[in-house]
């Protein structure tokens, strides 16, 4: 089975410690969450690897961050792992740094 490393970027922590994770799935309803990572830092990419993915299937994911008062969702991203790939590849480079502020 295939695997993928999801990346997120904290733009603003709202002045408080933040926790970050990812939601992912085969639609924008996602359905899966990665384990939260504590104390993610502004300007530093945080990442999580997910496993047991099917080759040739379209997956959606988005970054999530929260502090003690609110939660923020990154923009939706998609990737498909090509059948038979054996080295890590950039799955989608179409939407670098689409910052999103959630109110």
């Amino acid at each position, binding site marked *: 089975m295939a695997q993928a490393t999801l990346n997120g970027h*904290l733009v603003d922590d709202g002045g408080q410690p933040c926790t970050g994770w990812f939601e992912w799935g085969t639609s924008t309803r996602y359905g899966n969450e990665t384990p939260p990572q504590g104390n993610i830092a502004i300007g530093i990419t945080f990442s999580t690897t997910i496993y047991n993915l099917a080759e040739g299937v379209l997956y959606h994911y988005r970054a999530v961050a929260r502090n003690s008062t609110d939660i923020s969702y990154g923009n939706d*991203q998609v990737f498909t792992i090509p059948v038979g790939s054996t080295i890590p590849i950039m799955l989608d480079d179409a939407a670098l740094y689409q910052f999103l502020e959630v109110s």
Partner: protein
Amino acid sequence: MTGAGTALDPYVIWDVNDLQDMANGAPYAAGAYYELGCDIDATPTAGWNWDAIRGVFEGFLPRSLSGQLDGNRHNIDGLYINRESAGGQYLGLISSITVFGVNRVQNVRLTNINYYGRGNGEQSFVQIGGVVGYIDRGTIYRCYVRSGSIVARNDRWGFPGTTAANAGGILGGFGDGGRMEQCYSNVSVEATHSATSHSQAGGLVAIIWQRGDILNCFARGPVMSWSRTGGAVGLIWDVQGTVTNVYSTGTVLGGIAGGLIGARELGGVAPVNSFWDMESSGIAISDGGTGLTTLQAKTQATYTAAGWNFVTVWTLDWEYVYWNDGYPFFLDDPMPTITVISPNGGEVWLVDSTYNILWTHTGDAGTHVQIDLFLAGILDELIVASTIIGAAVGNYSWHIDPGKMPSQQYRVRITSTSLPHYSDMSDNDFTIAGKPSSIPVVATLPATGVG
């Protein structure tokens, strides 16, 4: 007046009455040291000493000086003199410096002077200067007569220099010595005499009678007399006067007129390294000196080639060609500057918040400034059209609009409203940011994967 009149504790002149007291002498000793403690409003002199016969106020009554007057770069504004005599009279802020003593006048600035003197007797003469009427010894140093007019008239026959009408922007005349250094005038000067050959007028001095040295001076005002008339010196008489590193630009009208020097007689020595602007003066001849085009007269190389000191004495507004109209001026009297202190780059200011925009200024940069905001080099907002320039540090409290677009590329520019050439912009960009909230912001980045 305070002080003791000594070099270490001079009498301090605080107002125009003190100024007249200095001129009156008593109770202040001859040979005393005086200084200005502040700018002096001398406009009340226009209402002093009513002359019922002539139906005019005679104004300030100048007297001789044998000590020192240090203006401390303060300004005397509106000094008024209107005097008539059947004998001789020397008129100016100081009438004459003729007896042995310290004999020094320095760092005095005068604006809006209004001097008139008339001789009406058989032995009458009148000699008027913006600072001193007549000098035999001593020094006039760094005195600037910035604006106003000087008029000398004489209705009796006489000889030049003794029974004449002489008027000069700084000095009426040198007698047997004295020195003028780093002075300038920008006043209108006029001298007329019923015997046309006996009036002299010069932008700096009417006459160098026997000796007298002028070094590093300039004159900008118009000069007129019926006889010897020069943009800087009306008449150089005898062989011991020197004129060095002097220029003039004012219009010259006279019976014997010269752009820089009206006439040299009895062996009067030619000026050295000195110039006049032939275009602005309207005259292409001079009894000494070198005529320049206006462009040449506003070019530093013209003067440095002649050995003028542009390191410690002279400077020139080459950038704007504005201050002193682009002609050389003194480093001691620099052009105005405005300098932005804050925001000057690197600051992070938040919308819907209030900050102090700060600046400093030097010189006479006007009374008010305009403040503009630039975004990425393009005018973005007029912050305020006019706010007071302030004292040592100017301050404008600016509330940033809540809807201001956040950016890291803002700068402010502060400009004198009356002298718009004098402005300054933040040296580097500063940031206007949205107010921080408690809401985190996160972005999703591309993933990497492997089959």
